[in-house]
């Protein structure tokens, strides 16, 4: 006999007829179980590689570009320690290979702030990892000792909730999960312009207010110092409208190309776009940048370990 399915509808919708994507919860689908948030390395006791997210805490030393302050391209990014973003590659990136959030060859977590390996001239304030029980590599254990106490379990699509490993269940109250605070679309409309030598950069910022009082987890996995791939196909200065969610990867780019930053603080989610002054007069096209964002109640920088009772 199949397990019964528990569905919870959003206000105004029926659980009997709503599409699964419009439900608040369905035990038909796995719900991420966050078991740890930390800014430290962690010796993995799970026996497999868990899913994760990584975040950077910025500071006033972080540049807009990947180059060091000793290079003529260096520009200060204007960030503070109140600013956080995803730990994804940027063109601050020559040195980023071994920094950021990694599960290494031994499946242990390495948490390392981004820094300038060439000169040591700047380093992120901190780095944070958010770990989920859902595996990305390896096999979940058949037995594992978790913290004791009362627990609410809802079985997923198979097995027995009492004996399943928690990642196999739809709900396990011993762990945190993602809770959506707000969803929306942030749009930036840019006019065409010509930037002459000596004009300086043109910097545009759009933001959405969340006022949570702390830096929240957000999606998409966009960070600072990004050079959207769509810009790189037409050469310096050329640009066309794009959706940020579509251009999270990076391609070859010149140091002078526009820079996209997405980051949060305790009150806002920001999208900033910098058209850089170049060595000669440069014309930029009119364009629209669209960001489909999701802000969660979860806090970047919070520390806990729900695998045992030793809270950090």
């Amino acid at each position, binding site marked *: 006999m199949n397990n019964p399915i528990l569905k919870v509808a*959003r206000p105004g919708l029926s659980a009997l007829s709503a599409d*699964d*994507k419009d439900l608040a919860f369905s035990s038909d*689908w796995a719900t991420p179980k966050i078991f740890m948030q930390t800014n430290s390395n962690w010796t993995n006791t799970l026996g497999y*590689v868990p*899913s*994760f*997210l*990584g975040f950077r805490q910025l500071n006033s030393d972080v540049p807009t570009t990947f180059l060091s302050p000793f290079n003529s391209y260096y520009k200060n990014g204007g960030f503070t320690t109140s600013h956080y973003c995803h*730990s*994804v*590659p*940027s063109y601050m*990136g*020559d040195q*980023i*290979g*071994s920094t*950021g*959030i*990694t*599960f*290494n*060859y031994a*499946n242990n977590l*390495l948490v390392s702030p981004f820094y300038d390996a060439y000169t040591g001239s700047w380093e992120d304030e901190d780095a944070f990892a958010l770990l989920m029980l*859902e595996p*990305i*590599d390896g096999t979940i254990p058949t037995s594992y000792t978790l913290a004791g106490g009362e627990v609410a379990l809802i079985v997923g699509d198979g097995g027995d909730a009492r004996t399943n490993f928690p990642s196999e269940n739809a709900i396990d109250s011993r762990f945190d999960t993602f809770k*959506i605070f*707000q*969803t*929306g*679309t942030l749009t930036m409309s840019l006019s065409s312009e010509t930037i002459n030598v000596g004009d300086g950069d043109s910097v545009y910022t759009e933001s959405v207010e969340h006022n949570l009082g702390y830096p929240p987890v957000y*999606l*998409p*996995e966009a960070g600072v110092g990004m050079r959207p*791939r769509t810009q790189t196909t037409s050469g310096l200065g050329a640009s066309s409208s794009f959706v940020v*969610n*579509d*251009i*999270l*990867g*990076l*391609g*070859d780019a010149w140091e002078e190309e526009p820079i996209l930053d997405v980051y949060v603080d305790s009150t806002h989610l920001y999208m900033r776009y910098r058209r850089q002054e170049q060595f000669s007069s440069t014309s930029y096209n009119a364009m629209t940048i669209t960001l*489909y964002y*999701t802000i969660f109640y979860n806090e970047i920088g919070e520390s806990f370990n729900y695998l045992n009772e030793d809270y950090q």
Partner: protein
Amino acid sequence: MSAPANDDAPYYKDLDHNLGYKPIVRAFTYMNAYSVTGWRQLPIYYYEREWVDGIGFAIVGRTVTYEHINNNTIRFYGSQDREIAVQLFLEPREDAWYE
């Protein structure tokens, strides 16, 4: 990974989810390249050594990334034989909850 894509990520492979909308994507890959070894989240930009005729060994930039090519398919870009672990959220990337 099968067909040529671009210089940074010369191969791609399509994942058909057929949801009829663009879901939130989480993806990971195991890197064993110049300066990075281990599981990293996508997108990733990294460097590796490559022999270039007339130059010798060069450090070249590479990416592993993805894009929604329509409402039913996600295209992942990377190097040949690269394995990518993918987790799709049922929530769409646009209007995941309430606007």
